[in-house]
């Protein structure tokens, strides 16, 4: 977690308090609300994984990805196909397979986009991922075997043995457990020495490559890891919603992943979770008010413009100091150096 504890003078730490606060809140949601609201919250947690996946790419390794929904959707389709064509709905199989699909797909795309001869620019990667997501959406929309424009209804519930896991509190806790595991794993990765390299890359990629780091390989690694998390979210989504369609694979959802991240605050991990909670709660509330419904996309767009223009650090920027957002990395021998490093490498996340 944030801070290694051996720094001589420690500033007040808000991030761990926030993290634990959010976790406790999420743990008691099903006890406080109806089944219906628990299901809505479950969906948000799934999207939170997608947001974390985006944050890993943009907030930690400078990959502007407009294609996270591609891995999400691809895993969702695979899960739906397993259920519909083979009748396989066991949770112990669906979860690892979804992760594997996300991992392999993102590795292949990362390989193609990042590991070429020339160093790719941010724009190249952004357009590359965008194109991939768009192409995939159009492809499944025209492919009859996977339901074409209809998408696929996942008729069966997720099962453990013969026990059916219906959307509700139990499914919620399973999703929450997945989210927590993804979160902790991501936190460990970005605060490790690998994370330090990533932070350095984000600041000055050239300098890091002069040091001898193969920066594109690091990027590809993190991109694949992020794709794995998006895949897990997609597999769970297909079973939770009981439906997966071309829209879950394309640039629409990918853009939402970007919005969640930017709104919550990139380079914080927790920001994505808060971004999903904020945007989805507003959307859910507003869609009850009929007068607002048609204007919701416009309202969302304006909020996003304001956030990007005036608050590039998102919600997290309001809550947590800059020093703490960057945190410290792994274990090192001399803390003095580390402090200096951290000072030098303070990124301006989200503005670059």
């Amino acid at each position, binding site marked *: 977690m944030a801070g290694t504890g051996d720094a001589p003078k420690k500033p007040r730490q808000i991030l761990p308090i926030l993290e634990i606060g959010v976790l406790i809140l999420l743990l008691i949601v099903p006890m406080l609300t*109806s089944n219906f609201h628990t*299901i809505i919250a479950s*969906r948000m947690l799934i999207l939170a994984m997608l947001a974390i996946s985006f944050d890993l790419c943009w907030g930690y390794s400078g990959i502007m990805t407009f294609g996270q929904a591609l891995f999400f959707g691809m895993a969702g389709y695979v899960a739906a196909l397993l259920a519909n064509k083979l009748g396989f709905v066991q949770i112990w199989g669906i979860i690892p397979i979804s992760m594997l699909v996300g991992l392999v797909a993102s590795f292949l795309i990362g390989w193609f986009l990042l590991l070429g001869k020339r160093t790719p620019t941010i724009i190249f990667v952004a357009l590359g991922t965008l194109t991939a997501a768009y192409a995939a959406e159009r492809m499944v929309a025209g492919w009859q075997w996977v*339901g074409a424009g209809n998408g696929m209804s996942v008729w069966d519930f997720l099962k453990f043995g013969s026990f059916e896991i219906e959307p509700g509190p139990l499914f919620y806790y399973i999703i929450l457990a997945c989210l927590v595991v993804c979160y902790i794993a991501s936190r460990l990765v970005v605060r490790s020495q690998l994370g330090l390299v990533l932070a350095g890359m984000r600041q000055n990629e050239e300098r890091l490559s002069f040091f001898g780091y193969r920066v594109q390989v690091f990027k590809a690694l993190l991109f694949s890891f992020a794709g794995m998390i998006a895949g897990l979210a997609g597999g769970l989504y297909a079973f939770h*919603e*009981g439906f997966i369609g071309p829209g*879950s694979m394309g640039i629409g959802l990918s853009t939402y992943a970007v919005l969640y991240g930017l709104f919550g605050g990139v380079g914080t991990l927790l920001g994505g979770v808060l971004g999903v909670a904020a945007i989805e709660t507003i959307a859910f509330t507003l869609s009850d008010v009929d007068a607002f419904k048609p204007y919701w996309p416009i309202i969302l767009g304006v909020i996003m413009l304001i956030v990007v223009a005036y608050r590039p650090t998102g919600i997290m920027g309001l809550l947590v100091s800059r020093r703490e957002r960057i945190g410290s990395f792994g274990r090192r021998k001399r803390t003095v150096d580390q402090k200096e490093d951290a000072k030098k490498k303070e990124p301006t996340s989200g503005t670059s």
Partner: protein
Amino acid sequence: MHMRERLTRRSFLGGTSALAAAGWMAVGTGWVLRPDWAHASGPIKMGIATDITGAIAPSGNANWQAAQLAVSQINAAGGILGRPVELLLEDTASDPGTAVGNVRRLVQSAGVDVILGGITSAMREAIKNPIVRRGKTLYIYPQLYEGQECTEHLFCTGPTPAQQCARLLPYLIKEKGFKRFALPSANYIWPQLLNKWARKVIEENGAEVVMEEYFPLDQLEYSATVGKIMSEGVDHVFNTVIPPGLQAFMKQLYEAGYYEKGGQTCVYFDENSVNYVAPRELEGVYSCLDMFHTMDDAFSKQLIADYNAMFPDTKYLFSAGSAATGMYRGVKLYEQAIIATNGDLARDAASAAMDTASIAEGPGGPSKIVPGTGHAEMNMYIAQSKGGVWDIISSEMTVPPQECG
């Protein structure tokens, strides 16, 4: 299209506020229309999930208004066994992804006893799961469709391919002499299965299918297809393109001069189609549906008059291809089912009673569910659009659905 949606939305709201003055209330989540009287065991909650916004909005709004008409008639006559019916609306927004979440509100949050709605098959595929399986609720699907929907607790009250095409296509070939058919289609399940049916009937009657092509639903560029239709000597276009692609396809087909060369069929076209395409593009198009406004049936005429009186300024007409007739029929069949169960609203009991439900009078004529099939038999009419009205060519009584049997 977008401009049109804005305006139609406003007129929809206007129409609904007129209802509020007439004793209905619109509150809270989505729209709720509460009757102005109560019963000890509470109202029967009927959920409507249809496309109020988006590409299919003209049909969705007609559906919602048809449901209001049917329910207001039931309530005016004392409800079902003394219990009033409360209507709850959720917008499926012509987008299956959005719809899944919104339908869930009806099932889990509002706890409705039955849901009617969905227009495209893509929508039915998406929402039948949250309704029937995850929601354990009875579902009535009102639109004409491709058949083969045999899900338990799901009832289809619109026409099937057998009802629409079994007579229409032989008529076009034998009586009108069309020989070379083109099947341009939107790429989803309805056109795919309907075309399979159509191809079989076309070939059995000695005509041929020259081309069968599928396009993404939102494709707007059809010059290659239209060019092929013009050059391959096609004399009849069996059109299953749907909005939003429909408008572009019809326009380009018209502008290429096809209308002087051959005929066209679009089996969901009805009085509401002027909301989608220009009148000149409708001219001469054939359709086969369970009701047309030009038909000579006292009950149907009264129904259309009542509808127009209830929604005086609406541009969404009570028409068959927009599933308004299926919606009305579905509400009335459900009423009969609940009378048969003696007021038991439980899903399994209501579903069992729906299986044998029938109505002596309905839009286009009487109707009944063919037991064990989940589909309804109804009267069917072949018509051609001439100068803005649908000229009925022939009619057939109590046509069986030929599904799931």
